[in-house]
């Protein structure tokens, strides 16, 4: 069931693998909004994790020195 490709057609059909769901413009905007919101949350989480790792690395270097 896990697909490897997503396509968005001009007719607003979102195709995942061999299945596609056709959307209205309003539904497309809502889906886009949710994707951007969740991508933003992911970015913030990843950025926070990265800076935490960096901070822990600095602490580790200070302790070993």
């Amino acid at each position, binding site marked *: *069931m*896990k*697909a*490897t*490709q*997503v396509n*968005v*057609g*001009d007719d*607003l059909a*979102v195709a*995942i*693998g*061999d*299945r*596609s*769901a*056709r*959307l209205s*413009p*309003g539904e*497309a*905007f809502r*889906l*886009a*909004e*949710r*994707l*951007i919101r*969740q*991508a933003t*949350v*992911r*970015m913030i*989480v*990843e950025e926070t994790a990265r800076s935490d790792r960096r901070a822990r690395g600095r602490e580790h270097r200070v302790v070993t020195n």
Partner: protein
Amino acid sequence: MSVAGNRSYHARARTRLRPVISDDGREIVLSVYAADRTVAAMTLSVSLAVNIAGELVAAASRRLQGASSTRPRGGDHRSDKRARRDEALRDFATLLGADLSLEDRAAQIIGKVTRYRPTARDKQGSSERRLLHRIAETGLPVPGERQMRRILAKQKNALDGQNSALSPNP
């Protein structure tokens, strides 16, 4: 809605595929659901999620722009052409004998405009040929008798108005 129509509506609603975003805190998954089960799913990276969102917004905007530019939204879409044609018809009426009634005038114009076949030299031709050319180049159909009378009557009313405005007060 009838009972049968209601049933088919709910059947369509059940089988209709819909995309759903889920996020378990670790990954973004875009799934396609039919009724209450997933029929396809894909894990998205952040950049892919943003790209798909961009494509969705672009496609939806194109759809909305297309809808607003091509769909007729009421009103007379040929009003400019119609105004040009009617003006030419009224100018044409001034070339006809002043003693004609409105009905005769309308019938004569309809006959001439219907018989008219444009030629390349009409633009430089007589005033009658030039006016017939102006009427024909609008591409609009020749008005019927009743409509023609109405078009010509507008000129008559306007002239009457002008004359009464010009006439000295008793």
